[in-house]
């Protein structure tokens, strides 16, 4: 196994909650609370979870767009959290981000030329002629022409804007891209185009992706590995095919059951979770999922489940760990058991509930 390009260990990003006249810190929103993963060069890690689970904060923490409060992030062997000034700028050339909303992420007062050129100027890449060539090349890669350079963002459609945002990210030739819900704000008809573009770019430029999304089918299509996040933690992580075939964590199972099936004959039974996601300011004890988990036991309320790893498939769940043990380490058998355990709740659930 080669050295991973991005290695995140125990990442914590807490936002202080201040109250009162003196703005005393009364607590913290634990948006990201102990997240570890690594992405090898040329591979894509999909990060899924419902809104508010902290997946966006993970992406931004890695790029230091929000300051992490703990843990470590290593990029190509270098400690991202310890760098500053010129070193950080150098790292930022190699790590870029594409945001969800292509209407908000492009400065409305700047022409596409200035938007693309900015990174080149900051990182002193190329002279004036060379810059134009680089920009044209980046635009061509994203399916636009140099004619776009002299236009303003509002003259483009959502899909085109997202292409511009992608061009801005790749024009400075980074190694690693954080794709923060890059297609969620786009029309469905455009989503496939942009996803295919991203896959193409990964092959052509040898990019490494952290693909953040709540769209499970897109993540499955794009990613090599998938991590499922719940309330600031990763609850399950596995190679994409394994995770989708043999989900072990009750939350993953519930998440998958919510994906509408296109096959009319095969009606999936919906697992409906009760209650709301707890506040990340006061996360539950033990397993964070226990208040909503139909399989929760006494131990889940008290002990935080450690990772149980079988052939690169990691799951943080007491019940799943026991099932795996009983199945003698056969993930397929354990996954079937887990699905069966979850099934009764699916049957009794009312269809109106979400």
């Amino acid at each position, binding site marked *: 196994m080669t050295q991973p390009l991005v290695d995140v260990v125990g990442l914590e990003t807490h936002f202080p909650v201040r109250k009162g006249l003196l703005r005393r810190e009364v607590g913290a929103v634990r948006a990201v609370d102990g997240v570890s993963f690594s992405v090898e060069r040329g591979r894509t890690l999909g990060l899924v979870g419902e809104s508010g689970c902290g997946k966006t904060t993970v992406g931004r923490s890695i790029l230091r767009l929000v300051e992490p409060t703990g843990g470590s992030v290593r990029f190509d062997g270098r400690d991202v959290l310890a760098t500053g000034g010129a070193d*950080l700028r150098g790292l930022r050339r190699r790590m870029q981000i594409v*945001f969800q909303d292509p209407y908000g992420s492009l400065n409305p007062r700047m022409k596409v030329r200035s938007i693309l050129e900015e990174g080149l100027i*900051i990182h002193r890449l190329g002279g004036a002629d060379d810059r134009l060539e680089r920009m044209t090349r980046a635009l061509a890669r994203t399916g636009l022409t140099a004619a776009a350079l*002299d236009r303003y963002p509002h003259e483009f459609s959502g899909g085109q804007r997202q292409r511009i945002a992608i061009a801005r990210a790749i024009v400075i030739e980074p190694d690693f891209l954080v794709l923060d819900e890059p297609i969620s704000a786009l029309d469905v008809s455009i989503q496939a185009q942009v996803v295919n573009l991203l896959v193409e770019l990964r092959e052509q430029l040898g990019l490494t992706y952290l693909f953040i999304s709540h769209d499970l089918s897109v993540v499955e299509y794009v990613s090599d590995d998938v991590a499922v996040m719940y309330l600031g933690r990763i609850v399950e992580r596995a190679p994409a095919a394994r995770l989708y075939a043999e989900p072990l964590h009750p939350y993953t199972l519930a998440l998958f059951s919510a994906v509408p099936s296109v096959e009319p004959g095969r009606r999936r039974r919906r697992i409906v979770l009760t209650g709301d996601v707890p506040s990340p300011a006061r996360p539950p004890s033990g397993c964070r999922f226990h208040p909503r988990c139909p399989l929760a036991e006494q131990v889940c309320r008290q002990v935080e489940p450690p990772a149980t790893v079988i052939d690169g498939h990691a799951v943080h769940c007491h019940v799943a760990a026991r099932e795996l043990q009983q199945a003698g380490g056969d993930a397929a058998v354990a996954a079937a058991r887990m699905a069966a355990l979850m099934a009764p709740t699916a049957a009794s659930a009312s269809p109106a509930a979400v």
Partner: protein
Amino acid sequence: MNEIQSRGRQSHGFWAEAWARFRRKPLAMAALVFVAMLAAVAVLAPAIAGTKPVLCRYKGRLYAPCLGYFDRRLEPTVFAKDRFRGTYPKNLAEKDPDSWAIWPLVFQDPYRAVRENEWPGRPANPAKDEGRPSRINLFGTDQYGVDVFAKMVHGTTIALLVGVVSMGLAGTIGIIVGALGGYFGGWVDMLTSRITEIVMCVPTLVLILAVIAIVEKPTIWKTMAIIGATGWTGIARLTRGEFLRLRQSEFVTAARAAGAGPVRIMLRHILPNALAPVLVPITFGIASAILTESALSFLGFGPPPPAASWGSLLNDARSNLSMWWLVVFPGVAIFLTVLAYNLIGEGLQEVTDPRLREARK
């Protein structure tokens, strides 16, 4: 994806589009034209009303004595040497029969009353309370017989300068203070916000009166400086709000991801987006600065004589209220100018604020 290239039309930026929308607003445009006209009047004042030729030929050379209205030193010394004593028409004809001159549109002086036969065949300006508006004195004369129209034309400069200079100063201070507080937050914001609040508590008019009482030579520039130095609080607050809001925007985050530093982000990314909403209170501020100056002049703390602002004309009217023309004409001029700036501000707000704009494509 190819529709972009085929569209050949010119690409318009935010301000070009705002201007296009502004042009379709008749009231705002009328106000803008009015202010532009005032600016023209201010610049051309000596050619509109005065007793010095705009251009004249005297003893074989060309002179422009009217420049003396801008600055005494610009008046050619020849005329002082030849003892013109400021009276051109008769002297020119007597001392050089071959001379000719182009006169201002209205032969009236803002600083003194025109005497009898100073202009061939014309009577002296009426003084006391008899100088009601006439064909010769369009807006009447004051109690010393000085033409009100000429005074007002030459006072236009002050009215415009007060607004533009003081708000230029206020805008600069306000944007810098607001930008620093809004962008950096934390203790910087705490500090700038408290300073803003303290300055906000200072009553401008009282401060100006106090300063004028203390300084040796009160000039209009000092008044402008004080109006500017106290009038930036609203602008600072608004700028702070805009910077706070835009600092969170994704294009700023994107710029940070690209490695941009705080200066670049503030100047290139946030300020251009914050400028439009900040320009609106600046425009309104110009209107209120003009009002403040008028109020000061009315109280007798205006520019030192002989320069006259519109407000000081109103002050003259206090001593004799039967001279209604001393109230009406300057009053209307102040009113219209303030109204014009307010209309421009409102128009600006409507064309730049997307929430006030109707359908946007």
